[in-house]
């Protein structure tokens, strides 16, 4: 989203969503030009083209003209963000649904192809619970927060770094990107210390320092770092780090242009009960006022705090977007309307 004017609060028009799906369609086709000029192709060329596996394009839904117009409209955004680093925190529904996961990954690979530098950070709550169950370890929760004792921490580390991380890397590689999976432990990327309430919550950590040296060569060479939010302290003890926090501090360390948090809600709502009252753009002052007024509550507050902390450390803009929307990343980065709430400094 371009942070030029304050947009009046309005609901996303259906046309926007349609636009984005047709925009995405154009990228799924391997050889669109060839498909629309059958008369120009010689016999030998035609037979070689037939052997290329080209996914079916619904030509009736979007004409070639519309598709290239949409592509061309994305140019100003691509120019604005080309070469800039964008940290995306992946979690929630977008992580659980196969279809949404595929769409996020396709978006990430697309953005990486046009020159944006994406860093992917993930958590993985539901998977952890599943595996704790398989190993007959009872998950403990205190006031809604997971208690991570030593045995739980082992599982958390294994699941996040070993399973979820590598799965994402494999999917990105399959989609055509080149992903490298790391955790906060690798290269001392994230150094942790026990958080103040660790006596009750176990091995949950706060981030002491971020050293992005190890991922800079990856980013500079158009590879996609996928970071699991597990970090170690100076003694080597692993800690579970909140993925939003990890993404925020990483964005600050990299001097990122954007921090994007994928969530399971539409964004920050002016009126909690009115899904149409999405706040599209707001600054730190405004968002603090909303917290004081009680309009932002519950699980949204830590996310907003994480955004404010990143903005205070120099990240240009932060966004909380709706991960349940297909192609939410493209909507947020390549359109004016966006897919959630953008918080600016």
């Amino acid at each position: 989203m371009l942070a030029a004017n304050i947009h009046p609060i309005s609901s996303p028009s259906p046309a926007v969503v349609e636009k984005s799906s047709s925009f995405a369609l154009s990228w799924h086709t391997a050889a669109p030009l060839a498909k629309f000029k059958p008369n120009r192709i010689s016999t030998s060329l035609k037979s070689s083209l037939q052997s290329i596996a080209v996914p079916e394009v619904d030509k009736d839904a979007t004409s070639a003209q519309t598709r290239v117009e949409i592509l061309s409209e994305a140019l100003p955004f691509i120019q604005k963000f080309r070469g800039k680093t964008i940290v995306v925190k992946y979690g929630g529904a977008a992580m659980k649904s196969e279809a949404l996961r595929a769409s996020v990954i396709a978006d990430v690979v697309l953005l990486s192809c046009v020159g944006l530098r994406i860093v992917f950070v993930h958590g993985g709550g539901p998977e952890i619970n599943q595996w704790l169950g398989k190993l007959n370890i009872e998950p403990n929760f205190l006031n809604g927060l997971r208690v991570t004792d030593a045995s739980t921490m082992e599982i958390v580390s294994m699941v996040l770094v070993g399973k979820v991380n590598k799965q994402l890397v494999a999917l990105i590689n399959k989609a055509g990107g080149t992903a490298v999976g790391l955790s906060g432990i690798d290269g001392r990327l994230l150094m942790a210390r026990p958080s103040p309430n660790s006596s009750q919550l176990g091995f949950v950590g706060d981030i002491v320092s971020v050293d992005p040296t190890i991922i800079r060569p990856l980013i500079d060479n158009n590879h996609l770092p996928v970071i699991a939010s597990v970090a170690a302290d100076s003694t080597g003890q692993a800690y579970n780090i909140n993925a939003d926090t990890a993404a925020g501090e990483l964005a600050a360390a990299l001097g990122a242009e954007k921090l994007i948090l994928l969530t399971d809600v539409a964004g920050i709502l002016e009126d909690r009960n009115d899904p149409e009252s999405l706040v599209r753009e707001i600054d730190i002052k405004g968002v603090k006022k909303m917290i004081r007024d009680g309009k932002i509550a519950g699980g949204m507050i830590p996310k907003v705090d994480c955004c404010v902390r990143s903005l205070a450390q120099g990240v240009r803009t932060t966004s909380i977007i709706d991960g349940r929307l297909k192609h939410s990343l493209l909507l947020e980065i390549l359109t004016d309307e966006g897919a959630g709430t953008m918080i600016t400094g």
Partner: protein
Amino acid sequence: MGIRGITVSDVRGFGAQGGSAERQAGSEFSEDNFVVKVKMEIVVSKDQVEEIIAKIIDEARTGEIGDGKIFVSPVADIIRVRTGERGEKAERMTGGRSDMFSVGSSSTGAR
């Protein structure tokens, strides 16, 4: 607001926070580390001071440690090097507050 000039410098600094660490570039900095900061110096007339303070706080406050401090100090004299003007005349700048609020006259009166 009528502010027409400002000096900005890149500096390093720290302020002991009594235990809480300041975050910079993702890492926590304790009291003995210098952190990169920006220093702004603005010379204004006395009656503008409160307005400017309010504006700076409004725009720059993030609520995090490291937001910084505003020091208000008196200025003994202002001299414009190019013309040798001193005092109020030197402080005035075209398009500034005095031009914004004076009615019609282009002379140096009004304020």
